[in-house]
């Protein structure tokens, strides 16, 4: 189990501390109560003892760097402990295209839900572990126990990343409860059983077939250097979360670039109108730019819509997306939230997918994905080598509406816009 060490408060009025010297390096073992870092403040210099015996996994702050008290500075793997479900969750299996794409932070994965309840009992024991519960309120502890959720697997939205009672309930909504896991559902099917389609799954099935049959799909992909926009996000994310309560992911930056590219390529924000009766087939170019965002839930995909996304700043998009994601996880999306999309963005990379061929949302001209952001060695124009954060973006398009020429122009434009987006002014 990993223990995150935060900058201690060395004195009542002290609000920040400087890492004077790391006494241990990554990979070193450390004993409980052994000093592993020297911290200096304007009042004192002090060694900080490790609260656990284990191995240094990560040092998060450089020597000489000053951070606020409570900021994580190191991660220590506790000796003898096994990895938690949470630390292994990402990158397990890539979900089918356009069907399950958790946007933003991956939904909390409960360490439970086997039909016989064996791991559930184990998780309930681990819930008692002292370090996992540091800062957990009585309500959080009770709810976690009742729903057999591992608090450590939940990303906190409270102050200093605290897991709130609402976070636990959102995790319960996002994940199948142990009770439902015993019966056969889409999320946890029992091999050899027939799964009855939910209403949502039936509609998804029908629409996917209809879209794939009526719209001839073509596909293209670009690789985008997102290093600079990533840095911008990192610079802004804590403040944004503090002020809004929502996580700041790469999604709103990406959507901002998409709506700008759609303005440059209006045919990508259009729909094919088939012949009906005496009227000839046509293409309707939408006036509004309404971006659907694909959100994977345990049982099905939902695609709520950010209306008039072209009129929103990155911050505005982030707030709108945060609200929709929260509503989706709580099962509170209304009809209005889901209607009127003109183009879709699918954040498919959260689970590590590197390329995907999404199915177009019916009545739209295209869908574009964000694949996993990975560090790569790239050769730059001047033949130098650099380590950059790279992301693939895949586009499926309705070939009745646009040809490859327009589509590749759109993708190239999107790539350019994202690569130019770096730390600058307000969100």
């Amino acid at each position: 189990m990993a223990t995150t060490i935060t900058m201690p408060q060395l004195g009542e009025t002290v609000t920040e501390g400087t890492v004077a010297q790391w006494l241990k390096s990554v990979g070193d073992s450390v004993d409980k109560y052994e000093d592993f870092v020297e911290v200096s403040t304007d009042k004192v210099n002090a060694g900080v003892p490790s609260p656990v015996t284990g191995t240094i996994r990560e040092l998060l702050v450089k020597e000489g760097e000053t951070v606020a008290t409570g900021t994580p500075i190191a991660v220590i793997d506790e000796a003898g402990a096994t990895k938690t479900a949470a630390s292994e969750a990402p990158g397990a299996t890539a979900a089918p295209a356009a069907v399950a794409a958790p946007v933003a932070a991956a939904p909390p994965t409960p360490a439970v839900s086997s039909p016989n309840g064996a791991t559930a009992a184990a998780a309930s024991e681990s819930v008692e572990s002292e370090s996992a519960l540091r800062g957990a309120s009585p309500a959080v502890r009770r709810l976690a126990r009742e729903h057999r959720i591992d608090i450590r697997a939940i990303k906190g939205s409270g102050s200093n990343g605290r897991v709130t009672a609402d976070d636990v309930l959102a995790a319960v909504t996002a994940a199948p409860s142990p009770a439902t896991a015993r019966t056969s559902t889409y999320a946890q099917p029992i091999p050899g059983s027939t799964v009855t389609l939910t209403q949502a799954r039936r509609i998804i099935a029908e629409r996917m077939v209809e879209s794939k049959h009526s719209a001839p799909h073509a596909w293209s992909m670009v690789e985008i250097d997102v290093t600079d926009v990533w840095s911008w996000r990192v610079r802004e994310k804590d403040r944004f979360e503090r002020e809004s309560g929502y996580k700041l992911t790469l999604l709103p930056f990406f959507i901002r670039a998409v709506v700008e590219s759609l303005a440059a390529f209006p045919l990508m924000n259009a729909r094919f109108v088939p012949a009906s009766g005496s009227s000839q087939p046509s293409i309707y170019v939408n006036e509004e730019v309404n971006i659907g965002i694909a959100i994977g839930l345990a049982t099905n995909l939902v695609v709520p819509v950010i209306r008039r996304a072209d009129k929103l700043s990155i911050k505005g998009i982030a707030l709108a997306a945060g609200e929709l994601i929260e509503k989706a996880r709580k099962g509170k999306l209304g009809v209005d939230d889901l209607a009127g999309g003109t183009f879709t963005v699918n954040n498919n990379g959260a689970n590590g997918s590197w390329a995907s061929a999404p199915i177009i949302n019916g009545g739209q001209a295209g869908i574009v994905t964000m694949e996993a952001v990975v560090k790569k060695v790239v050769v730059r124009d001047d033949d130098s080598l650099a380590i950059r954060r790279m992301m693939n973006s895949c586009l499926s398009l309705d070939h009745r509406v646009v040809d490859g020429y327009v589509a590749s122009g759109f993708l190239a434009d999107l790539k350019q816009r994202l690569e130019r987006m770096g730390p600058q002014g307000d969100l």
Partner: protein
Amino acid sequence: MAVVSSTNSTVMNNVEAVRATLYEAMKNDERTVILGEDVGARGNVFLITKDFIGEFGERRVIDTPIAEASIVGIAVGMAMEGLRPIAEIQFADFIYPSFNQIVGEAAKIRYRSNGEYTCPLVIRTPYGGGVRGALSHSVSIEALFYHVPGLKIVAPSFPDDVKGLLNAAIDDPDPVLFLEHKKTYRLIKGEVPDGHYTIPLGKANVRKAGTQLTVVSYGLYLHWALEAAQRLQEENLSVEVIDLRSIRPMDKTAILTSVEKTRKLLIVHEDNKFGGIGAEISAMVAEEALFSLDSPIRRLCGPDVPSMGYALPLEEEFMSSPAEMADAMRAMVKF
């Protein structure tokens, strides 16, 4: 809820509501007697009983000497022998001489006489600060009497509650300490139903519904808490504000129901924090609803100083404000 015998209503401020209710009580029941300093010829320092002495006579509207122990002591005797006295302590700051009569006598009569006697006595008194009242016209005294079984304490904030609760206090067979925040006397106006009605003692009222934080308050601070909660509403933060109305008996059900919904509790009162009403509410919630709490309980209360100063900065330092309350609420919602 209020039992209303008429559908019409009149807009009044708090002081007018007290006056109208006392007038009706005098009119409707000959046993009703008002006694206190300056209640007769002067008609009370806030003119609450103006002209009462002319209409009801000096046997029922009694000007007393400046002797609070006697005011309450005489009223206790009247109540035990069948009258319905409404004693007035001119300012809550002057109540201390009558402490023994209230705590040692009035509150214990039913118990001491094995139920043979009751003490249907109302003690009205204006309390609270924010009016440049300094050492002897600013105090909150509720916590001093809060500890005493056998005594009910009521502190309404709105005119309709003033009338309903004062009627209930007059009807009640046991002693009731009726606290009127003097800053709200003319500041707060509202519709008051015509005719006789009562509001049950011991029932709180959710004045604003919300989902993310429960705020419990009473008196002037209740109004400020509502104002602060409204500000947070504009930031899409949802705060529930409970008007305690009766301080004792405490409406545990209303508080617990709300806290179980919002999981967070802030108690706001003007009286000192240490050993105050908030301490009891906080302890009660910790005992009964700990596992519903998603944050520490917080109290925003008066500081532990002997009194409010006369100088404006000293008074302002003592008193909270809607802005300070909004900050506390915001921090708790986002905790």
